């Protein structure tokens, strides 16, 4: 690892390769992937101007039974000869829900990672990060007809459940992200944070409505819009039969002919989505599966810091 930071240039290069999806994809365990990414980000943050963000030390308070022993400040005990517990800002107040799209369209990837794999890794990393900060994290896997919901908990063992749920999920069927958002909005009793990880290939109006409901309930919402590089760049050539992932529809096109209008329509869609999010105070992050995985986490942390 030390070799990675031997110079500024090397640092950037090392970090980018560290979060390179093609590198991350080689790690088969989702937990290891999440840890790999989070540790990498945190190491990077130490050396970045973002230092000081995240879980901030605020003050000491007297130990009371029930407090975890690991929070006792042993240095302060040595200095003051009494048990003092470190008090952190925002500690345990956050309830975060990860809404991960598990529709068939997420099971697509022309590169090293599918959108699902990318989304799952990102979600696991976020869960890892949040739980590490003692935030309560819940998970909602959005499917065509139903959702699987893991309620938000702040215990570290909960990460295992989240990772297992993500690991076990096989994306399939149509998209139901809009409906899932609405249900989540209906089910949330407390304000919190909602992280949406999806390709948002659903009715844009319905998606916006779902997000809006979440916002109306006072939730902070961040949308990670995951798209494959092939979807964003349309690198196909020649005559091709394009097939829908979720349905049996197909169409034969001259790729060179349709590329420009396709990218135009996609651009309109992305711009529309971004604008709708912006108008509702929702943080929107467009991620390509070809981009390093830390980008999402960094954007998340930056957003969190700004929101506080």
């Amino acid at each position, binding site marked *: 690892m030390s070799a990675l930071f031997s110079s500024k240039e090397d640092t950037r290069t090392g970090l980018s390769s560290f979060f390179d999806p093609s590198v991350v994809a080689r790690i088969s365990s989702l937990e290891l992937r999440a840890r790999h990414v989070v540790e990498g980000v945190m190491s990077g943050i130490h050396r970045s101007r973002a230092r000081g963000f995240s879980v901030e030390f605020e003050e000491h308070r007297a130990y009371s039974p029930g407090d975890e022993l690991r929070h006792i400040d042993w240095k302060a005990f040595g200095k003051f000869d009494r048990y003092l517990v470190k008090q952190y800002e925002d500690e345990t107040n956050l309830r975060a829900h990860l809404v991960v799209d598990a529709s068939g*369209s*997420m099971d*697509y990837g022309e590169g090293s990672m599918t*959108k699902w794999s990318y989304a799952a890794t990102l979600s696991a990393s976020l869960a890892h990060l949040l739980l590490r900060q003692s935030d309560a994290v819940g998970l909602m896997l959005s499917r065509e007809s139903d959702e699987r919901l893991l309620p938000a908990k702040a215990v570290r063992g909960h990460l295992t459940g989240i990772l297992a749920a993500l690991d076990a999920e096989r994306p399939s069927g149509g998209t139901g992200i809009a409906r899932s958002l609405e249900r989540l909005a209906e089910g949330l009793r407390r304000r919190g944070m909602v992280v949406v990880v999806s*390709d948002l*290939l659903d009715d844009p109006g319905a998606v916006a409505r779902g997000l809006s409901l979440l916002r109306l309930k006072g939730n902070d919402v961040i949308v990670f819009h995951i*798209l*494959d590089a*092939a*979807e964003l760049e349309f690198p*196909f050539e*020649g*005559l*091709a*039969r*394009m*097939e*829908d*992932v*979720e*349905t049996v*529809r*197909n*169409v*034969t*096109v*001259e790729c*060179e*002919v*349709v590329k420009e*209008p*396709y990218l135009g*329509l*996609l651009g309109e*869609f992305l711009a529309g989505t971004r604008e709708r999010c912006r108008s509702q105070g929702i943080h929107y992050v467009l991620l390509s599966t070809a981009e390093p995985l830390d980008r999402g986490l960094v954007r998340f942390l930056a957003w969190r810091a700004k929101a506080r």
Partner: protein
Amino acid sequence: MGFQFFHSILLWGMGLVLLPILIHLLRRRLVRRHKLPTFEFLLRTQRRLTTRSRLRNWILLALRVSAVAIVVLLSARPLLQMAGGESGSTWSPLHLVVVLDTSGSMAYRTAGGTRLEAARKAAERLVRDLSSSDRVTVLATVGERGEGPPGIQRRDQALSRLSAIVQTDAAGDPALAIRRALESLTVPADRRTVMVFSDFARGDWDKVRVQGLRRLLPHAELQMVRVAPEAGTDDVVLAGLTLRPWPPRAGAAFSVSTRIVNRGGSRKDRVPVSLFVGEERVASAELALEPGAEGGTSFRIRAPEKGVLLGRVELGDDPLETTNRRYFAASMGQQLRVLLVDGDPQRGLLDSDTFYLASALRAAPPGGDSSMLVEVVAHYELAKVKWEDYDFVAACNVGQWPPQAAGSLRKFVENGGGFLLAGGDLAARSLPDGGWLPAVLGEPRRLSPPRHPAVPLELQEHPIFGALGRNPGRFFSRVRVGKLFPLSPAGSAAALLTLADGTPLLVAGSLGSGRAAVWASTCDRDWGDLPVHPVFVPFARGLVEYLGGRAKGTASTALDAGEPLEVRPQAAGRDEAVRVRTPGGEEITLRLESPRPLSPPARPGAPAAQERSAAPPARQGRFEGTARAGFYQVLFADDSSQILAVNPPASQGDLEPLSDSALRERLPGVRLAFSAIRAGEGNPARSVEGRTDLGPLLFLFLAGLLVVEGMLADHS
């Protein structure tokens, strides 16, 4: 307007147009499949683009198919047939052969001049429009001898040649001209076109039959250009002229009968007919003729005592002047020198073989001399005889010939003399080397009962029977022949008199410049009674005049315009050259040459012709420039002269044009195109069909097509 292909077989390559279609279909089968979650956007895109994309794909396919088709077409060398003549602006040179019909019928006058003038104008315009790299050959239907390849000229040379072509009164030989035109198409040129400018009158074209044209040049096109067809065929033709007796006797009256045909479609109320002697009109008449009807007039005038009788009969003006005049010429007072050889001399005149013949030939008009100077010799006197002192020799029942006599006799005939071999009991079956005679004699046989001679229908107007009127056969109906030598005509010899069953009695043929005949019977009454019948005198005189030269050569009315004039000085003359004065007054020197020995059918044991020659042959010449009708005067070195009347061939009066289909039948195996030009048209070449090379145009089109294809393909 139509298309032609220089290499039409390459059009089979048109199947290659399926190649782009196959590739298109194959490409659709080999399409790659991709999944795409954002399919909805693609679908919306595709809906928007489908129409345009499909259209573009179809256009691309059409362009590619067209490109392949054009490449195939280019290789097949397409030529566009359209009015305006041959285009010179092309990427390959053109060889244009212009055949101008200069026969008499082309003198037909129209609103804008004669048909020949209209044809020449159109041809000149066509030649002027050619490029400098093109080549031209100019031919005429009259006067093409068929010796050596026709000249291939540049544009300016061809224009000079066109302007030098003159109207003739002769019959054309279109078949020879076309054959020579196709033979001339040997220069390396991609387009080879023969343009024939003619009226296609039946007179010349009805007899045309040319086979094997495709073999001559498979890629040539023959374009038949009708000249001023709108002018019609309205014409009154002086179709025939008969003078009786012929030749006219000095100082005696003779009749001139005309045969006149109205070839036009309207009645002619007053057709003026005039008879001129010299330049003086001595008689005239008028006649009315219904359309298609035939009529005639007859004049009777007196011949001069001596000198030359030059006359003509002339009709009034009409569009075709060529057929309005006929000429005749005769020398008065010249006697034919006749030698009769008696093979069985007898004391009694009536028993003599030559008595009847000599009497018939010596007959003279009252108060006048015979036109023949007759001498009789016995067969044993032949060694002293010089054949060249005579114009005609008749051997009557000659059984023995002195050595060399027969060989020198043949040379005599070749040099223009006339010879008659008559049978008899003593006569040998043939001469010692008589293979040159027009008939082979068989064993004599008796006819029981005796039979009557007959004149074959097609020979009723033969000069031999000139004094016997239109049905000479009737005069022989009472003549009986009881014995004869069977005759087998040789080569082109013709049986002029036969028995009713076709057995030849009199066979005549040509040899060199002379003529010879074999009479199957005797000259006396031994084998038949012809000598005691009235028909014997005119028959014998007609036969001797025909064989001896009075009815041929330079004193004949039988020569048609365009026929060569055989010039033979008098037997004693050895002129190296003579001058020929044409009707236009031009004098042309004609060199005389010794004739090449002829090679008659070889007979076993016969000596070679050279060995038989006793004396160097008399020089002779052949004058080809008789294309205009009128009087031709041959001027010999000794200041003597002979005058010849040359008339338009009767065929030139038949102006009825042959149809396109009839022409196709006569010229099978070659591409024929038809067009017509009008007389007086400002640019007659505009009406002539030409072939434009589409190569450059197609090439440009292909280039443009490829550019568009490239742009569309790039755009995709």
